[in-house]
């Protein structure tokens, strides 16, 4: 009897050892293969704030000055100091605000800047956009003739750079943005924050590509070219006329 039980136990032990040593969950392809890198889109679930009723307000800390709100044109909102009141809108919204605190210390005005940003949804959360196989559309380039004369304020530039003939030509040939001839003389490091939007777009596109100053940035519709400042007034006017017409 004891001998029979011992044989059964030994038989079970041997089979268990064989099964454990074979990694039964792993599959293997037998045949011709290769390894490539492919994109994989991972879905991440996150919690977001959804505003369920209009109107509502977005509030920045009180006690600051010069609150400057930015919000998408897809919503209707009004600004009153540190409060943004949203009256219409739907979907994903990103709101940002910049403000400063100002105080006098020992006769000097001390200004400290602050900024904040908030992403939320109004009404419902739209499904995330699917990856678009098409390239991004080109930015909308405004139609017309526009010119930027670029210099370094702390370096000498020739007198004709500021000449009246250049001004008169550009006044007569450039388009008008916000009611004013669309050409400027800019320092190469200038942010251009307060330029009309068409010139701002042009400056943002051209600024990183300017390698030497003084320089001339010329935009005719979608075509933007950057030139070193010609050697004299006549050559500068010829360059401008080549693009802007006689």
């Amino acid at each position, binding site marked *: 009897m004891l001998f029979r039980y011992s044989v059964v136990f030994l038989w079970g032990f041997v089979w268990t050892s064989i099964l454990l040593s074979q990694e039964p969950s792993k599959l293997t392809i037998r045949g011709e293969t290769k390894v490539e890198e492919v994109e994989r889109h991972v879905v991440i679930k996150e919690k977001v704030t959804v505003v369920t009723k209009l109107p509502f307000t977005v509030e920045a800390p009180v006690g600051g000055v010069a609150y400057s709100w930015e919000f998408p044109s897809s919503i209707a909102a009004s600004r009153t100091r540190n409060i943004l009141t949203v009256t219409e809108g739907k979907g994903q919204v990103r709101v940002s605000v910049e403000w400063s605190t100002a105080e006098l210390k020992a006769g000097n005005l001390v200004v400290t800047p602050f900024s904040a940003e908030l992403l939320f949804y109004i009404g419902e959360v739209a499904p995330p956009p699917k990856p678009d196989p098409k390239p991004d559309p080109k930015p909308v380039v405004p139609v017309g003739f526009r010119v930027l004369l670029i210099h370094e304020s702390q370096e000498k530039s020739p007198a004709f750079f500021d000449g009246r003939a250049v001004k008169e030509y550009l006044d007569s040939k450039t388009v008008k943005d*916000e009611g004013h001839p669309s050409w400027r003389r800019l*320092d190469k490091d200038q942010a251009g924050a307060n330029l009309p939007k068409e010139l701002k777009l042009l400056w943002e596109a051209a600024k990183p590509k300017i390698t030497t100053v003084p320089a001339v940035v010329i935009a005719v519709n979608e075509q933007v070219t950057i030139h070193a400042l010609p050697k004299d007034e006549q050559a500068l006017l010829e360059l401008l006329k080549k693009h802007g017409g006689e």
Partner: protein
Amino acid sequence: MAEPFILTDDNCQIPVGFETGLVPRDFEAQPYGSIEGLPAMALPEFSDEEIQDRLNDQEKYKSSLLHMRADYKIRSLNQANYPYCWAFSTTKAIMYLQARMNKPIEELSGWMLGSVASGFVKTGGWCENSMRAAREVGVCSLAEWPQGGTGRSLWNEVTKLAAAKRKVVEWSDIPNDNRNIRILASLLLSNIPVMVEHNRWSHSVCAFYLRSWKPFKYDIDNSWTPNWGNDGCSTMDWIPDNMACPYVVD
């Protein structure tokens, strides 16, 4: 512009109904290059030959700030009987820079700059005070901050946003030594307006044009209306006691 009005010790009196307001810079307490945010002058100086060539070129190409003053119809401002000359000189320098940039010309408010920089106190100062405010909060136009306005209530959300559209981005301190005539000439010939301060006149004004090098003469734009001097301006040869200049306004 007609024949220049030459300012001298004999004709520099303050007209009735107007003020000056310069508090001379204390160079012992605030020596050149010591003021935070006010870097030292970096523009290369012009040689004698370059100065004369540039004077000729400015006339040939009509490219000086004097020409731009006419082209952009820049008028002298009016500080009236308030001691804010130190703010009006900065305000006017910003206007000349805007003309050089070909920005639409707006008359800017020295009243706003003086009021905010002084904490709404009727007091004198020097151009560093107003330039610091122009850099940190910007400057309003006269359409946004009216002529004669000095009340604290004017400094509200609307005017703060308006001022922020015109901030001085770069400006420089100018050394107070015997080289400063050449530096002043080099700046003016580069179309950079300069706030010049004369302790003997207790006044801060905006220099904008080098009329001649030898003898040294330059034009200033005063803040006593276009009725003073020649259309509000004069030619002078006094060596300034203090100078600063904005380079870039955004």
